[in-house]
């Protein structure tokens, strides 16, 4: 992969984020009622409103406000929350860390379960195991998170069994096992659709790859079944799955918002919902930008991973 490709690609990501920033900034400007109105409430006097507008610079031309906001954002300063009066970055970044932990664990769980499920289904194609995995995947794909979450809560967090806590968050650094215990249900809920989706993907790719000449050739070399499947077939079957997983991340970001709300998990999704409910403009802008950046970066990483696994791909 050439340096010029990397430069081009990173430039493209920056351009995307710039476009997103314009949209995010624009939308918050179009919303009825400005920040001063938000802060002071409906009964504020005109004088008080004018004073706050003057302090926040809300009277100046929009493009100047945008430029100030953008340059501050680039410097890591997302502004001050209108709701709490704290710097937005102090609210958002720890929340982002918690959400990333949630997402990472969900993806890990997905890989650990979905890949073997897909392989087994492909090897037992048309047999009961395949049918069961297939049906499970259909159910998993077709259930929205709030339904999955409810089912998961009913089964695993009911008062009778009480296996897992229904809500809350404990930092892993504080108490590792207790932290994992609290993460279990949100992670499970988020990963159900991913597992269902990716296992179906791996299954169909695996079936195709098992019929290729090179897999037949590997078999005819007398290699063990294990080596034929894991070393010859699997890497080729996983290649398309990488792209799908990267696209799923976009979906995952949306799913996390719902799941965090249901399980009262203090992540970026929850912060974003609170910010929207309170018209906390700086926080909304920061949250939306962070999500867009995450999506762009994950897709970039997926492309790099694809090129690393498939030597035929040469980005130029």
């Amino acid at each position, binding site marked *: 992969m050439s340096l010029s490709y990397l430069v081009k690609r990173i430039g493209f990501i920056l351009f995307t984020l710039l476009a997103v920033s314009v949209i995010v900034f624009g939308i918050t400007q179009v919303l009825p009622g400005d920040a001063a109105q938000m802060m002071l409430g409906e009964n504020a006097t005109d004088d008080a409103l004018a004073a706050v507008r003057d302090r926040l610079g809300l009277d100046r031309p929009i493009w100047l406000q945008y430029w100030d906001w953008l340059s501050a954002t680039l410097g890591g300063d997302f502004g001050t929350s209108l709701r709490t009066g704290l710097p937005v970055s102090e609210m958002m970044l720890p929340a982002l860390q918690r959400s990333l932990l949630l997402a990472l664990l969900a993806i890990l769980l997905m890989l650990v379960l979905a890949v073997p499920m897909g392989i087994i289904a492909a090897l037992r194609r048309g047999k009961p195991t395949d049918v069961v995995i297939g049906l499970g995947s259909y159910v998993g794909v077709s259930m929205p998170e709030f339904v999955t979450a409810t089912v998961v809560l009913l089964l695993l967090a009911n008062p009778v069994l009480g296996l897992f806590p229904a809500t809350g968050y404990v930092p892993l650094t504080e108490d590792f096992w207790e932290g994992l215990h609290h993460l279990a249900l949100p992670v499970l809920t988020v990963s159900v659709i991913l597992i269902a989706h990716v296992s179906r993907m791996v299954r169909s790719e695996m079936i195709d790859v098992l019929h290729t000449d090179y897999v037949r050739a590997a078999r*005819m070399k007398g290699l063990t079944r294990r*080596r034929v499947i894991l070393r010859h077939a699997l*890497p080729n079957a996983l290649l398309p799955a990488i792209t799908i997983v990267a696209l799923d991340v976009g979906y995952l970001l949306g799913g996390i918002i719902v799941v965090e709300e249901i399980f009262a998990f203090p992540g970026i999704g929850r912060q974003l919902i609170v910010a929207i409910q309170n018209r906390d403009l700086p926080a909304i802008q920061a949250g939306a930008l962070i999500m867009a950046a995450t999506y762009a970066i994950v897709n970039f990483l997926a492309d790099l991973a694809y090129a690393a696994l498939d030597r035929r791909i040469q980005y130029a």
Partner: protein
Amino acid sequence: MSAGPVLTVDTYSLAYGTSAGAFQALRDVSLALQGGEVLGLVGESGSGKTSLAHAIMRGLPPNVGREDGRILLGREDLASLSQARMTNIRGRRLGMVFQDPSTSLNPTMTLGTQIIEVLTRHRGLDRQAAQRESVAMLERVGLKTPAAMMHRYPHEVSGGEKQRVVIAAAFACQPEVLLFDEPTTALDVITARQILDLFRDLQSETGVASLYISHDLALVSTIADRVAVIHQGRIVEQDPAERIFSAPQDAYTKRLISAVPRPDRRLVDDEASSTGSTLLSGQDLTVRYGRPSLLDFLNKDRAKRVTGAQSVSFDLAQGEILGIVGESGSGKSTIAKALVGLNPFTGTIGFGSSKLTGRRDMDAAYRRAVQIIFQHPDSSLNPRQTVGTIIARPLRRYGLDREAPVAETVAGLLRDVQLPEDYARRYPHQLSGGEKQRVAIARAFASKPQIVICDEITSSLDVSVQASIIQLLLALRARHGTAYLFITHDLNLVRQIAHRIVVMYRGDVVETATVASLARQPEHAYTKALLDAVPVPVG
């Protein structure tokens, strides 16, 4: 070898279970392969030759219905062995080389790994010893830089080099028997010859008994000790190789042999060419592919464009058959497409009295007069249209539907290509490969063209079907006086039917000569190499 045959196929029969009932793929096949012997197995597609290879390797698809008879490796009945025991035999005592090296090597693994794994699996070598042994093997199969090859991926080397790696892996454990399933069919003529030479060398060096499967009777008769001919799942004849061409016994073998193109058996009269005036000519035709990106354009870096054909000049007389030969990538199809306006070109096409310098100059009269038939009828016939609609299309396009009722004309065209008239209502997938190509021929002739470009139109067909298609083309030419631009990689075939031959190599025309003088005294080194590489039927 006094111990008897190393591989015995004893009255073996095989049926597949299909949705349409049982399909008998092999019937009472009996073969015996002695140590050090090369047995050629020749058959057309669907004859069961590949099924036999899979049966010997015990790599049959899951829909096998019924098997009868025995296949013995030494004295062991392979069908009675467990999967695990069979896995131990494969690659160690019994190996296989596949047709297409570009699909039989794993694209995500280095070439080295794909040999090393065989050695560590079957010879119990540790990784370092296997690595050393692999480099030695790669050197033995004639690769120039064996150590560097170990780290390359399949897409980084040529087709011939890939097949050498596959062969190295097959020979790595000194097996008793090797099956070769059309190992040179996917390669260019000259590369195929080199692989064949390699096969001969390794075979005589190691004395491995080989079953060489191919559709190419001429090729097999040059390398095998004995030749078995298989037809509809039955071995119809087994002969010493030198006898198969001179004294075939079975009726099918005789038909097959008569279908094999032989340059000494001309199918056209040679006078026709010299009398006609020039009909179509190309002067300095150059085709470049790809579009320079904006950045390259600004840098004035035009070199990135790929040249498909470079300054090609030729002329085609009325009623002449002009052959164009060359390996894949030599630019022959590129020129064909440029002539019918599918590729942009620079240079001049002369047609009658007019000069064409670009695709815009191609008017309806030119397009009607110059028709093309493509290699794969599967992709050149619209699967959603009936044969009748497909053939009627040029009639409507060029206003011929006003001269006579379309249905009548279509029926006539179908008769001309020896297909039943009711085929007009059928869809392409209901036809065999040869029948589909006949439909494509009928479509090309619908507009009553003066020139038909045949772009490898028989390369995906069996020899007997190829022979009948060639007969058809010659009959149509005799009736309509059509000139052909006949593009092929099959030198024997083109020497049978062409008046003159254009030899292309890497985008350039290296030689244009009459068939007789080309064979007698080829001027260019590449032409000589090409002539040397092609096995000519003997006897």
